[in-house]
C-alpha cells in the first residue's frame, strides 16, 4: 500500500511556477466589484419584480371590483320604497299624480329628449292657462 501511496504522491507532484501577486490581487479586486454589482443587480431586480407584482395585485383587485366602485353602492337607497311611493302597488294607489310622475321620469332619465321637452313645455303652458300649477 505504501509504495502505491508513494506512486500517487509522486504522480501528483508538479513544479508549479508562482503566480504574480500584484496582478492576482488586482484581478481579485475586479472580481469582488463584479460580484458585488451582480448581487446589487439581483437585489434590485428582485425589488422591481416585487414592486410590479404588488402593483399588478392592486390593479387586478381594482379591476375585479370595478363594477362595485361604479355602482354607487355606498349611496344606494331602497328603491322599492320610492317605487311604492310613486307607482303604488296592487292594493294601494300612488299619492302622486300623472304630472309629477312624468317629471319624475324626466328627472331620472339622464338624456333629455328635445321632443319631449317641447311637448312638456306646451303641456305646462296649457296648465298655466287654466290657472293651475304643477
Amino acid at each position, binding site marked *: 500500500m505504501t509504495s502505491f501511496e508513494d506512486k500517487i504522491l509522486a*504522480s501528483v507532484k508538479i513544479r508549479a511556477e508562482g*503566480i504574480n501577486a500584484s496582478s492576482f490581487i488586482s484581478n481579485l479586486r475586479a472580481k469582488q466589484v463584479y460580484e458585488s454589482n451582480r448581487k446589487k443587480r439581483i437585489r434590485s431586480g428582485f425589488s422591481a419584480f416585487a414592486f410590479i407584482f404588488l402593483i399588478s395585485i392592486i390593479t387586478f383587485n381594482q379591476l375585479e371590483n370595478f363594477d362595485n366602485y361604479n355602482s354607487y353602492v355606498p349611496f344606494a337607497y331602497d328603491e322599492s320604497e320610492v317605487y311604492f311611493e310613486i307607482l303604488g302597488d296592487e292594493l294601494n294607489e300612488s299619492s302622486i299624480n300623472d304630472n309629477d310622475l312624468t317629471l319624475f321620469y324626466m328627472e331620472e332619465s339622464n338624456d333629455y329628449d328635445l321632443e319631449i321637452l317641447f311637448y312638456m313645455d306646451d303641456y305646462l303652458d296649457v296648465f298655466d292657462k287654466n290657472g293651475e300649477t304643477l
Partner: protein
Amino acid sequence: MIDDKELIRKFTSGDEKAFDQIVQNNLNNVFGFFMKITRDEMAAEDLTQDVFLKLYKNLKNFRYESNFSTYLYRINSNTANSWITRNKWKGMLHLEQIAEEGKYDQNNEFEWTRQELWEEIAKLPKKQRKVVILRVTDGLSYRDISEITGMSEGTAKVNFHHGLKRLKEKLNND
C-alpha cells in the same frame, strides 16, 4: 513578516491593505494546491480567486483559537471538492488535454494517467475524497487532516486507506 492572525485583526478593524498582505502570504500555497488538482493555470487561478473571495467574506467570523492555515485548508478542501463534483457530472476532467505536454505531465512511468487518477478520486465517497485530496496534494499529516475536516485522526486514517484501496483496485485493474 507580520503574522497572519495579526493581519486578520487589522483587516477586521477596517484595514483593507492587510487583506492584500494575507493574499500575498498565502497565494502560492493555495495556487499550488489547485494546480496539483487541475493541472490548468486558468482553472487553478479561478479556484484560488474563489478561495480568497470566500476568505474575504468570512474572515470576520475567524476564531483565533484555531490555526489560520487550517482554516484556509478547510476552504481549499471544500472548494476543490465542489470543483471535482461539479466537473465529474459535467464530464470535464480532461486533465491530460489541459496540461501542456512536458510541463506538468511527467508521470509516464506510472500505470495510470493523471486524468484516470483524478476521475477515480472524483468517484470516491465524499469523506474519502476529502482526505485523499488533502493527503495526496499536500501530504498533510492525519492530525492536520482531522483538524481541517473535523473528523478524528483514526477516522481520517481509515478513510484514507479505504480510498487508497479503492484507487489501487481501479487504477491497477485498468
